[in-house]
């Protein structure tokens, strides 16, 4: 076991689209410890606030890896 604690916030890309939704954001639990070795924050269930589904306005799957600047529907401050 390791003493280093990884939180969900650590796993969220800083430039992720603000429309990206996940349970841990809503529960204000991004500071909770990640117990396993997942690469991405939360439970792996992501949605777009604009569609309220796992598929974005561009008909592609929502994921913190993908919902970044450059995606046509990106709605962040750099858009």
């Amino acid at each position, binding site marked *: *076991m390791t003493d280093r604690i990884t939180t969900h916030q650590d796993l969220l890309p800083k430039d992720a689209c603000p*429309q990206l*939704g*996940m*349970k*841990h*954001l*809503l*529960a*204000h*639990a991004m*500071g*909770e*410890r990640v*117990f*396993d*070795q*997942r690469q*991405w924050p939360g*439970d*792996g*269930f*992501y*949605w777009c*606030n*604009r*569609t*309220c*589904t*796992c*598929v974005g306005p561009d*008909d592609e*799957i*929502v*994921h913190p890896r993908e919902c970044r600047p450059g995606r046509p529907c990106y709605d962040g401050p750099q858009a």
Partner: protein
Amino acid sequence: MKPPQDPVEIPVGYRALPGGSTDRIQQRKVTPADGDAPPWHADTKFTVVGTDVDRVDGLNKASGRAKYAYDQNFPGLLQGMILRSPIPRGKLTRLDLDAARGLPGVGAVIALKKVGNKVRFVGDAVAAVAATTLDLARDALAAITAEYDREEHNVDWSLAEGAPQLDQDQQIVDAWSAHDGIEQALAAAKVTLDATYRTEVQTHSPLEPHGGVAKWDGDDLDVWLSTQATFGVRGQLASAMKENGIPVGNVTVHAEFVGGGFGAKFVAGIEGVAVCRLAREAKAPVKLMLDRHEEHTTTGNRPGALMQMRGGLDADGRIVAFDWRSFGGCGFTGGGGGIAYPDYYLGKAQSREPSHQDLAADTDPARPMRAPGHPQGWFGAELFFDELAHAAGIDPLTFRLDNDAETTRQDQWRFGADRFGWQQLRARQNAPGARFVRGVGLASARWGGMGSAGRPAFGITCRIHPDGSVESRSGAQDLGTGLKTVMAVLTAEELGIPPTMVKATAGHTSDPNGPASGGSTTTPSLAPAIRHAAFLAGQQLRELVAQHLGVPQQEVVCKDGKVGTAARSLPWQQACKLVGPNPIEAHGTRFNNFGRGFMASVCGCQFAEVEIDTWTGLVAVKRMLGVQDCGLVIAKKLAESQVLGAMIQGVSYALHEQRRMDQRSGRMLNGDFLRYKIAGSEDLPELECHMHSIAIGHNSVGAAGLGEPPSVAAAAAIANAVFHALGIAVRHLPITPDKVLNALAKKKA
């Protein structure tokens, strides 16, 4: 920002459990925020907290007076329904809504997909209608023309690209990648095991399905939703209505009563968007609630899992090597199948970063479900460890006591084993050739759920009225776990009155900001704000009483239904007459935690006894005991209800629940409660739980999460009991009669 108060030293921890070794009390220095209530601690004497208070809304729920989203009705209300894809994978090539729009009684017809959009599973939403009756809405759905280009599909995640090869016993046959440390430790181990464990997809089955009622007044929208996140879905719906220029402030979400939510109700969903759009187009209120088949097929699930482990024990029963790789059986997003396991047993064992891969299939995506990734991982790992211990001739309890790094759980193991009668039951022998055999098993649990302050900080409004009644209000939802009761108990404790004098209201976004109910954080996040609001309101009342009685304000307390000093006081009702025509109103704030408290993880363990009919393969769980901590136990009956409910859900997961897909059509074959079996009253064992209250000292209250932790251990404990009864492990959930009979045949062979 005002400076914090001076640091104070408080005792934290817990007194020895019967059978536990000793008191676990530490002194801890904490620094409360300015204006916050003094922190409760291990020596605090409570009047209401921790007692058997009844659920404040229990009578309303039991009598049908509680109004859920489903129960909202308005004049001119239309009924909404969704047209869903009949194919599992392809593209929408044509969508004609005109015929449906022309039908009598139809108020609105909207597209939810555009021509050219992908269709990703059977049940994917394509269009929606609202009509005066459900029958007319069905007619309207039938009048819609939707055509598709069908593509090759796969709805069996274990056949997905990247899935491991399995043998006839469902064991992974692909070789492990080499790891020197693990190989050497395995070579030197006294006993070793390499085994694969599997779980199936479990669908969400809350009593109240997803959906809601939407009602527009100009550009103002009121929505009654079955949701776990009032403030979250409010923002989502505003985003989804962005093209209509609807600001978030125009949207009010109501969820005063929610008929269950286990992780699938964080997002408004296509049904939430559809009901708002339909109501806007129809210029009439619309109700759109999913039916049970839609609930099974479109609202997410606990994904399946394949988990392979190899490991070894030394001569002292310590784990010296452990290796893990797993696969999550997911839907079309190919995500959400992550699995956790109890790493607190591993000590100094040779191990490495666990390997995990999610597998995609053309089905409804995974969603969080009560302790995501945990019941499946604990089932696999706890059964693996029991098999290892058995091979070494070690009792499962001894194995846990020798390997579990958590001191708190060590005490819980001893206490629970004594209460359950572990030694006697474990030593009991089944008669040779007996038709019915019994066995006992145990398993551990862990969770986080320490709560947070929120951003902006969560709040609570507390009002003391001149008639003596008290209000506590939160905009967060009570999804059935009992937030309103927690509000009443904490407010009553702070003000020295019975909880029946507190009217607790939750679930309207017009009230103060609160969290979504996820990760077992609602109570730990809101409890300090509830208490702070009551503390501030009480402070105002104490000032009035001090002036009235002419006594020093700092000596005035609210206690035992009185307000005053030891020498002079007023009964609560009399004191409240000093309030004047308008109530005292205070806004409590959720301050940041002091830092890490007595513990960072919630602990628990469960014990199960099963009886198996070796002729039919039927498993009956006869008895279960749960020992569970959650920081401060605020309302004992409510807390026990969480643990008992989790054990019931564990019985269902261990023995019954399994989504069955038809590979040819891509459809779910058992999308109803007739064929998708969940545990009923006749399946339930004698259930007992012991709440282990711990003063964490991480904020003014010290509550931790409870919704999810007790659901981690249940299926694992049952599977271990089945292993004990049969003498051979059933490594695949649910443990249905066919698997039991196969295991017995294998043992005999």
